[in-house]
């Protein structure tokens, strides 16, 4: 039986395909662990009460708020953050011909102006990723409902919705099931 412990615990998990270890106090939020301990600052902290969605990542393949999980809860889990969407993406600036490595969602966000300040974008991408894996052919209303999990203050969502529609098509074509 586990002993009461406010002190650090060792956790081991896989993040974006790589095994990572860390020493964390039990109260440390998963998003803070990702950002501060693993240096993965792509997942953003916007509200810490599960409304804004900027911290959304994939936990064992499913989108979840990393501000509403403790790092210790991710012990043994497989996580994917925005940094894992396109690990082969080239370094900025995007030069012509060198962006082929973006994930179709990222490419579509770029094409359709699906971001302005970019702060919600990682959470938006991970939420859209989960949306398309659970519903590969969503209607516009379904996309809007799915994306309502993440707040964006810049775009009015229009470019984002168009991007997700376009990415859905690309992903379907890629799988050859259109």
């Amino acid at each position, binding site marked *: *039986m586990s002993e009461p412990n406010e002190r650090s615990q060792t956790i081991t998990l896989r993040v974006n395909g790589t095994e990572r270890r860390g020493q964390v106090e*039990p109260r440390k*939020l998963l998003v803070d662990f990702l950002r501060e301990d693993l240096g993965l600052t792509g997942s953003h902290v916007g509200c810490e009460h*599960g409304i804004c969605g900027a911290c959304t990542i994939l*936990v064992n393949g499913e989108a979840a708020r990393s501000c509403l*999980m403790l790092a210790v809860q991710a012990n043994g889990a497989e996580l994917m953050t925005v940094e894992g969407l396109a690990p082969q993406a080239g370094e900025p600036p995007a030069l012509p011909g060198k962006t082929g490595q973006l994930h179709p969602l990222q490419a579509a966000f770029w094409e359709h102006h699906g971001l302005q300040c970019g702060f919600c974008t990682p959470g938006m991408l991970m939420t859209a990723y989960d949306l398309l894996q659970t519903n590969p052919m969503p209607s516009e209303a379904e996309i*809007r409902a799915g994306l309502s*999990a993440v707040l964006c203050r810049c775009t009015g969502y229009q470019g984002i919705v168009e991007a997700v529609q376009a990415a859905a098509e690309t992903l379907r074509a890629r799988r050859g099931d259109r």
Partner: protein
Amino acid sequence: MKPPPFAYHAPTHLDEALALLERYGDDAKVLAGGQSLMPLLNFRLSYPSALIDINRVAELSYLRQENGQVCIGALTRQRTIEFSELARRQLPLLHEATTLVGHLPIRTRGTIGGSLAHADPAAEYPTVALVLDAELVLQGPGGRRSIPAEEFFVSYLTTALAPNEIVTEIRFSPAPRTSGWAFEEVARRHGDFALVGVAGVIDTEGEQCRTARLAAAGAGPTPIRLRAAEDILVREGVTEQGIQRAAAKAAELVEPDSDIHASADFRRHLTEVLTRRAIQRARERGQEQRA
């Protein structure tokens, strides 16, 4: 804000979790999906000395049919229910209500047991449990007991769960195949807690109403079963007048509060509107079921 410090336990068996709960009593919080508890911790509105994280208690996560009932382990994620063929077929009302709980990333973590134990009257699951006459199985050091949903919800965020007990299972008896269902709610935004929600399951034949079950969310300190409105439907049938009178009765039965999003008056008004819409849609669905 960041959570205050606490001791943390992640038991892998129910017995272990119960022993920890016995040890800490009221000073501990059980952490299930965390979609309500974690914000409270992050806002420092809750200072438990220990968290008992039951997410690794695998024995609490299941969804199965048993003796004509659908039994759902308390740790079963809302997401699992959403994508469960069994839930969709046997408990369509629960399934529909699930899609109204927050957003998919919330449902990934949120559990049915956690939602019921938290007992937010505006949440969907407590109202569904009430309207479907669900049984909650509670386990404590002294063993298991089972309690009907109607007795489980005591007042605002307060249940019949003893400090040393954990909700382990929820049992639903599927409605007759001829009945229709509906969960109607009004929220300010998609995914928000409902200003008011009304759940209904009714079994009709023409204008005759064999059984009716109705309950309201967000319209009182607990989810509220609208029995007097049900009686009107059964007595008067699903005629225009019967439905109207049942809806009007529902508005009398609720005890809503005012807050910045809606006044008590408006919530009463919405209860009437949504009761009528729920009855009509449930009736249409029942007709489709038979067809």
